[in-house]
């Protein structure tokens, strides 16, 4: 017998995919409880998950379709709004690049799949993209090259059994705390946990070993580890035929051999002897898990290539407790990618919006974080913009038509976590305002445009997903409703099992800092709420925690080391002028932190002006994600 008040579901607030119960009477959500039997989260939740009830009971919801009239949004019926959207969109030539579609990495697979269908069959456009895809596409490309399919190798549950866990870059106890907790538990049971991170993050403190490299040299460090591992095997006359004969091995090996220990130390600040010692541990491990962050603050391609190569070189990737996982900050980044909403390289909706003379005239957008709207002026100047989201956001101001969407517990849907685990959440609350689920909304827009898909429920949509999406063939709502989800099957890809080394270049990264701009500014490290601000702003306790930092530093902050603060003659909370080498500048408070190296500075993502005014003009930095470095000067 089902319980009166507690309903199991999957937390939707990051790419971990933790199990949670919502306490609900079917109308409102009153509380949250962790789900003990869940194989990944095992009865743990982070501050976001524990406060899902606050988000799910916020009053800042979009409750009805809205149409802009005389500059103001007014309430409208579904019939009217859908007819208007269908009619207006038909007037644009999708095939000629006049329509763009911007999907959300928080949408369910059902919504993303039908949106992809709407994009392809109704709008007939190829200009599409997912809010945070830039970094993830690189992860997928590197993984597909290495393992033959675009997705994680292995499962997050491998962390619980692996001998060796390597965390590359990410501040994982903040960004995906439950994964961070599992890593911590692994360390305590005796696994060797090694973190490569230029700042002393919490996971660095909890690791067996922390390599604190100079910014920009993560990939070099990973490659150096590869070199040392190869050297041990050479000394031991240990040939691994299965590895040595993989495509790309010879070039990779040659590149590794070319690494000079002197240049390595000069660039990264890490001595090669330390790396050699680490390689011995790596060599002894029977199972190895490598984690890195993917998505908006993901790594650059050469670093991901270095990671997948090291994974293959380790020769441990066939062990059931080995894994290489691109950890996503958003619940269904992997799924949205699987459903085909990611843009084509060089032909994405982002490119179209950023190119002044592109032909784009209309935009269809799902759930976009207001802190990261790019090309806002261009969007505002488009002929027609449609926006759909569960929660109110600044993007509504740019839209001609707005549709409400259900919250994640108000409709059936599946979500694919960072390690390809597909999980289902069943509707457990009646949407107060009879809001159509995304797939149903898209189908009705298709209907009004003369196409009939015939979906009556999300399970039916999923049948089509299974039929048309590689890896998803074995799955169904019925199957996923038993137990705690299932990883999609890499065998669905023809290349599965074909392993290959990525081509790498050894570059001794020269810091772009100059005597005039002596600080290497890093971005991406933040408090808990990295990239979920549109949602977290609608909670109470997490919002307070988020604001906590801004209470202390109302103008935002730049973290610098205590010694640099002495050199600059500044004290904690003093305002400084930060000027970048390309001329952007901002005024921001100093936060003195012993976790930061001399000569480096950090600014968290969530500081609004940071992204819109300071970072976005710096095109390359944005593209490079977590590894981007901007030379700056800091003056009192």
């Amino acid at each position, binding site marked *: 017998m089902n319980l009166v008040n507690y309903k199991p579901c999957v937390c939707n607030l990051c790419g971990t995919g933790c199990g949670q119960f919502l306490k609900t009477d079917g109308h409102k959500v009153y509380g949250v409880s962790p789900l*003990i039997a869940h194989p990944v989260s095992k009865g743990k939740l982070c501050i976001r998950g524990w406060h899902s009830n606050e988000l799910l009971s916020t009053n800042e919801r979009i409750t009805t379709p809205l149409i802009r009239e005389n500059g103001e949004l007014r309430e409208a019926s579904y019939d009217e709004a859908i007819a208007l959207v269908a009619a207006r969109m038909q007037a644009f030539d999708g095939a000629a690049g006049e329509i763009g579609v911007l999907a959300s990495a928080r949408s369910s697979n059902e919504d993303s799949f039908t949106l992809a269908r709407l994009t392809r069959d109704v709008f007939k456009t190829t200009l599409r993209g997912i809010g945070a895809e830039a970094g993830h596409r690189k992860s997928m490309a590197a993984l597909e090259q290495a393992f033959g399919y675009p997705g994680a190798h292995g499962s997050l549950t491998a962390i619980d059994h692996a001998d060796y866990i390597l965390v590359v870059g990410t501040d994982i106890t903040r960004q995906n705390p439950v994964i961070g907790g599992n890593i911590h538990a692994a360390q305590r049971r005796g696994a060797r946990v090694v973190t490569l991170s230029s700042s002393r993050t919490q996971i660095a403190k909890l690791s067996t070993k922390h390599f604190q490299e100079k910014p920009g040299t993560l990939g070099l460090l990973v490659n150096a580890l590869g070199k040392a591992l190869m050297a041990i095997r050479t000394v031991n006359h240990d040939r691994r035929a299965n590895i040595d004969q993989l495509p790309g091995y010879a070039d990779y090996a040659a590149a590794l051999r070319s690494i000079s220990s002197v240049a390595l130390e000069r660039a990264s600040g890490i001595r090669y002897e330390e790396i050699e010692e680490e390689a011995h541990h790596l060599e002894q491990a029977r199972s190895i898990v490598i984690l890195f962050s993917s998505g908006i603050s993901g790594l650059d391609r050469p670093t991901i290539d270095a990671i997948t190569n090291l994974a293959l070189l380790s020769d441990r990737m066939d062990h059931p407790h080995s894994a290489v996982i691109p950890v996503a900050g958003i619940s269904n980044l992997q799924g949205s990618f699987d459903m085909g909403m990611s843009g084509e390289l060089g032909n994405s909706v982002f490119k179209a919006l950023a190119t002044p003379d592109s032909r784009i005239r209309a935009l269809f957008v799902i759930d976009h974080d207001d802190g990261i709207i790019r090309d806002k002026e261009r969007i505002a100047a488009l002929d027609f913009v449609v926006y759909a989201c569960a929660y109110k956001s600044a993007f509504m101001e740019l839209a001609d038509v707005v549709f409400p969407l259900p919250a994640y517990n108000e409709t059936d849907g599946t979500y694919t976590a960072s390690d390809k685990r597909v999980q289902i959440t069943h509707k457990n609350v009646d949407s107060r305002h009879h809001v159509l689920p995304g797939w149903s909304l898209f189908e009705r827009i298709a209907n009004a445009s003369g196409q009939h898909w015939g979906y009556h429920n999300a399970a039916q949509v999923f049948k089509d997903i299974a039929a048309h999406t590689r890896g998803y063939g074995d799955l169904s709502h019925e199957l996923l409703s038993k137990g705690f989800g299932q990883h999609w099957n890499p065998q669905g890809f023809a290349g599965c099992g074909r392993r290959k080394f990525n081509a790498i270049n050894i570059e001794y990264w020269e810091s772009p800092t100059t005597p005039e701009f002596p600080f290497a500014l890093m971005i991406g490290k933040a408090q808990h709420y990295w990239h979920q601000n549109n949602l977290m702003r609608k909670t109470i306790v997490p919002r307070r925690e988020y604001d906590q930092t801004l209470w202390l530093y109302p103008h935002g902050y730049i973290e610098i080391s205590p010694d640099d603060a002495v050199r600059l003659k500044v004290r904690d909370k003093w305002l400084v002028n930060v000027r970048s080498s390309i001329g952007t500048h901002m005024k921001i408070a100093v936060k003195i932190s012993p976790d930061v190296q001399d000569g480096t500075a950090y600014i968290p993502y969530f500081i609004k002006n940071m992204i819109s005014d300071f970072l976005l003009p710096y095109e390359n930095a944005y593209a490079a994600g977590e590894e981007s470095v901007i030379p700056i000067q800091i003056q009192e």
Partner: protein
Amino acid sequence: MSMSMYILSSGEISALVTELQASYDVYGPQVEPQTKQVFFDQLATPAALDLEAPIPSMPVKEILFPQMERILKYKYDAENQSVAMSKQYFERPKALFGLRPCDLSGILVLDRFFLGQEFVDDVYLTHRRQCLLISNTCLHPFPQCFCVCTHSGPDADEGFDLDLTKLQDGYLLRVGSEKGQAIADAHQWQVATPRHAKEFKAVVDRSIDLFPEMATDNKAWVAKVMNRITTGFVKQETWEYIGDQCFECGACSFVCPTCSCFNIEDTQTACGECERLRMRDSCSFEGYARMAGDHNPRQPVEDRRNKRFFCKLSYPQSKKYLRPGCVGCGRCQWVCPGDIGLPNVVQYIRREITGGQN
């Protein structure tokens, strides 16, 4: 009042539940079918009650001190400069059927805290006023349990109206209050014999024997650790070691039967009304003690942790609760993504005292 004891069959237990449902909202332990997770929740039917289910995953305080509730609703009319207010919490008779002794102890602690100090908390009182408490002896410990160290199990010795223990012949029912006696008097239950009383004692002793050595062994250590925490002699390094493992999720406070901190926030509803929400809070959060302006008196995470453990294990706090603040349910150990559930903290401080030797 001398304690009456009866022997009830399973059928009589079910009948009692059915009968109570006529005048109470009856809550009890039940197993969620898909996940096998146990919740202490309202019973749809008497059949849903599972008195042999393991310790519920969430503490029973959820019923008396919910994670989030609306306590006040008001609407301000700016034009006429007037306000209309209404109370949003209401009294309902509740029977809590099959409380584990740790959760019962938790309720007693909350009673003493919310009702026993200078001020009475009206919201808690309203939820608590018409409660019937029926406890259930634990025949064996569940993983992480350590109630034997905190004097809160495996059997209940105070605070219940009725108490159940499964014996060979059926359930031994002990009466603990006049309210409980009134219920017993209305039935023709078989009076228990001295043999039953003896069996009860044997059952409890067996249960205590089943606790893992570490739990029983920790009994003396809990007292020693309380002493250390009270006197402030725990080393800064130990607090830092604990603080480094805190992920600031708040889980320990949410699952603790005795954590009582809350936050109050006014939020706007869609139609221009305002609701005053009262929600559980945790002293492990950075923003918890923040003051408007620019001042956080309790910033480093180890200070905040320190505060919580002081609340659970110190003499001044025990004086308020008339027992240790920790009831030994072990839930904080389940939910902590670090490794600083209370039993572990006892271990860490113990290790400090012994200089690394356990």
